[in-house]
């Protein structure tokens, strides 16, 4: 049985207590996007600033939520700053791959397996601390909320 220590690593609680990049950015030039977790009421607001080359020049996080959603957002903000949107997309895929439960590998095609391997090489750094969330499936949506919201924000500001 997974214990609380698997979920609440020290680094998570640190990001929760001392969130990085908390705040707002002026819109425009920044883009603002909101995300909801309809199950628990968590809300996240992401402000993201992209330059013409598609580099995340700045990012800020608002909203409220549990330690998992907030620390995930905080770590994300630190991890994506200065990255190109392609790099962000790859990081997002790698993070979500870590967060997904593979109940049956029968369904995965070979192409998917190759993709998995490629993503395994992406460096997640601090984000690795969230790996234990997989053992608490209801909390996975907490961990991915910020990432989905950012992805939506990037998509919208490219449109």
């Amino acid at each position, binding site marked *: 049985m997974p214990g609380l220590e698997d979920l609440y690593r020290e680094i998570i609680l640190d990001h929760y207590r001392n969130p990085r990049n908390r705040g707002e950015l002026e819109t425009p030039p920044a883009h603002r996007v909101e995300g*909801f977790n*309809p*199950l*628990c009421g968590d809300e996240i607001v992401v402000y993201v600033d992209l330059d013409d080359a598609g580099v995340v020049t700045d990012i800020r996080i608002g909203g409220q939520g549990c330690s998992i959603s907030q620390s995930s957002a905080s770590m994300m903000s630190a991890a994506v700053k200065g990255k190109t949107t392609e790099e962000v997309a790859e990081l997002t895929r790698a993070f979500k791959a870590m967060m997904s439960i593979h109940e049956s590998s029968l369904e995965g095609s070979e192409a998917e397996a190759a993709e998995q391997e490629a993503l395994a090489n992406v460096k997640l750094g601090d984000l690795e601390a969230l790996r234990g969330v997989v053992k608490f*499936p*209801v*909390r996975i949506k907490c961990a991915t909320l910020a990432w989905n919201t950012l992805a939506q924000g990037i998509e919208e500001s490219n449109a």
Partner: protein
Amino acid sequence: MAVAPPSDPLSGTSLKADFPLLSRTVHGKRIVYLDSAATSQKPDQVLAAMDLYYRNFNANVHRGVYAIAEEATNAIEAAREGVRRFINARSTAEIIFTKNATESLNLVIQSWGRANLSDGDVVVLTHMEHHANIVPWHMLAAEKNLELRWIPLTDDGQLDLTDLDSILVGAKALGATAMSNVLGAFNPVRELTDAARAAGAISIIDGCQSVPHSTTDVQAMGADFLAFSGHKMLGPTGIGVLWGREELLDAMPPFLGGGEMIRDVRLDGFTCNELPWKFEAGTPAIAEIIGLGAAVEYLEALGMDNVRAHERALTEYTLSSFSERFGDDISIHGPADSSLRGGVFSFSFKDLHPHDLSQVLDQHAVCVRAGHHCAKPLMKLLGVGATARASVYIYNDTSDIDSLGDALEQAGAFFAF
């Protein structure tokens, strides 16, 4: 892929042991249950799955962090995946749980219909529809001033598709049952949906009688919506399914509003949750969804091709043994060819009124239904007020048909004095 089925791959006799009700006696005789088109009996496996839920992980779903709430949530989402697999839907986003097939049909007709139909639009139905696929259309027709057109029937109780294309001209929607609950006829669903699509109409298929009794593949079917009920396919009461194509469901307005179906609610408005939850307002029928999941597993283990082969064999036996035993005293509605029909037999026997007939059969512990079977327009077309109807399922066997025959003889004798 499938080889020609053997004459009867299932033994109804041995399956009976799984169904506790079938060992009950009525009026001192062992029950002969021949009303599965109305509702099926439930195997121990389904009852056990629901009992396990109530005794071990009864909790509200989707919103709890604690262990049993998570177990309950996982169980209903696993059942959704089971239903998806059973009908070969593309995604669980397309599997919406309702309270019964009637609600499923009302959901489509009211939500899709209010958003997409307007003054003078045409909807095509068949003359063998169940009230559940007629009355909601009448309600919408009154609101929107729609024109309803009806696909007629042939003399032996099949759809008469001679003029299908012209009937469909200008139609926006086609509603058709995959199998009649009165005539037993299996309809050529793919032909209907192809013709509807060619005419620019969506098709809404009533699968209440077909899904429990034959293999269902919604992708091969070519339909846009399919409705069916759990209680006719070994599952509990209080649960139905609506399958719909994701693009259509996505574009439709919500049907019932409340918890579960929202993403956000404010004083000045709300936004909807994603599919399938957008259409599942309020606390779901948790135990019933779990029971339906167990029913689907039970049917999958038997194999739906085997179910169909068993019932086809039983249909052939019924048609031939009754014609032998009763000759012109019995007349069975619907197609005579067992490849075109399922095991639902609406019949008239001598000059006995169905109500009187089923009363006598009950004294012999034989359960058949008497009435209009929620298909009054069809009854009128057949020129009767009611019929007696016997219908079979996996647990029935030739001895049940023989018991019905014996009871019919007794009824004939009783009213002949």
